[in-house]
């Protein structure tokens, strides 16, 4: 029952979309920010780096998520210390999910009210995208939406996802799906956070967060009437 409540909590939170393409992974999310009085921190409140080769997006209780992010960062570094290698993405996801599951079965404590999207690259399975929920269940995806209106977003993704997309097409799809969840045709760039992971010409993995101007260009390219900041 507690697990169901936790899952419900996630569905009220700001949405997050993840898309897997041949060229890499893109994340698009809606900021939960409500007040103009809020001092925006320099780093993201939703997208976190777990190690050089894997990032995650948070949905739900930030405090619960922060704890699990710390756990996964340490786990990834421990792996690196032992094996001098990047941790396989699935192992990292499984580790976090095992902890979440424990809180649904043991101890009488409430489950973590946090759902994640994990995205990264490893040498076994190349680019991968996973989602996990408060029950500790996880799955690999080609495209996935979590949070508010995820049902609508997921059916949109199901219809419009194609194999062999480029990164640009992936970004377009992500932003369209995200705007479906916000349910607006004129989104404001400061409410959106978009990042992608890809390999550059040298074959190195790079992660880039779009700045406000680039988000604006992406929205305009997809024919959204953008609401300017007052």
């Amino acid at each position: 029952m507690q697990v169901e409540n936790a899952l419900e909590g996630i569905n009220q939170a700001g949405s997050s979309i993840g898309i897997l393409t041949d060229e890499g992974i893109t994340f698009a999310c809606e900021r939960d920010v409500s007040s103009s009085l809020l001092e925006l921190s320099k780093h993201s409140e939703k997208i976190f780096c777990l190690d050089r080769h894997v990032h995650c997006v948070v949905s739900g209780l930030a405090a619960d998520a922060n704890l699990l992010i710390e756990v996964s960062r340490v786990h990834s570094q421990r792996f690196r210390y032992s094996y001098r290698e990047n941790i396989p993405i699935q192992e990292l996801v499984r580790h976090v999910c095992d902890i979440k599951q424990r809180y649904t079965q043991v101890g009488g404590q409430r489950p973590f009210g946090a759902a994640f999207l994990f995205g990264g690259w490893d040498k076994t399975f190349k680019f991968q995208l996973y989602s996990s929920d408060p029950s500790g269940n996880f799955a690999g995806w080609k495209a996935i939406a979590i949070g508010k209106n995820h049902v609508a977003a997921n059916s949109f993704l199901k219809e419009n996802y194609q194999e062999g997309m480029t990164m640009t097409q992936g970004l377009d799809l992500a932003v369209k799906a995200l705007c479906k969840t916000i349910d607006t045709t004129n989104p404001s760039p400061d409410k959106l956070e978009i990042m992608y992971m890809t390999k550059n010409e040298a074959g190195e993995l790079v992660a880039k967060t779009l700045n406000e101007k680039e988000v604006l260009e992406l929205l305009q390219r997809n024919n959204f009437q953008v609401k300017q900041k007052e």
Partner: protein
Amino acid sequence: MSIFDYNGGGIVAMKGKNCIAIGADRRLGQQMKTVSTNFKKIFRMQDNILLGLGGLATDIETFSAEMEYKLNLYNLRENRKLKPTAFVSLVSSTLYEHRWGPYFVSPIVVGLQDGTPVISTYDSIGCTTDTENFAVAGTAGELLYGLCETYYREDIPAEELVEIIGQILLAGCDRDALAGWGGVVYLLTTDNLHIRELKTKQT
């Protein structure tokens, strides 16, 4: 025989004008036997921080891995790079964590903080010495000191510093039976890192 003399090595670091250089030999031995001639003793921890380690080879590898572990977590949590002076303290506190079962290493931290050179050296349990000019470590340490005193002056330009460190390393490690078999010099300037490999007498 001391545990610090088992594998052998020679590390030397020197400050220059807005630059810093650190050099090390490449020998890995097991007492009198040479086992490898390309053993890494200098580790790039960050763009502007290098860590050189003398002492027991297994501890050189593990200690540098532990420092990388801590540095990576710092970057992830703080979302910023570590300052060289902060790294100097981190090495010291990590060494002291193992006060009762220490790493048998002699670390030298070398860095550029806002263009200013930083060198620090330690004993195996974290006693920090912030030197103003140069630092040495390893079985060839004492031999390297003499050459450092002779060749050091204030504000050595970068191109000259590489040469000087190279000569010091070659001459010093030649005298030590347990150090040598090749050398490598890292020159850190505000723009980039320049790595030069040295050919030595193969004895």
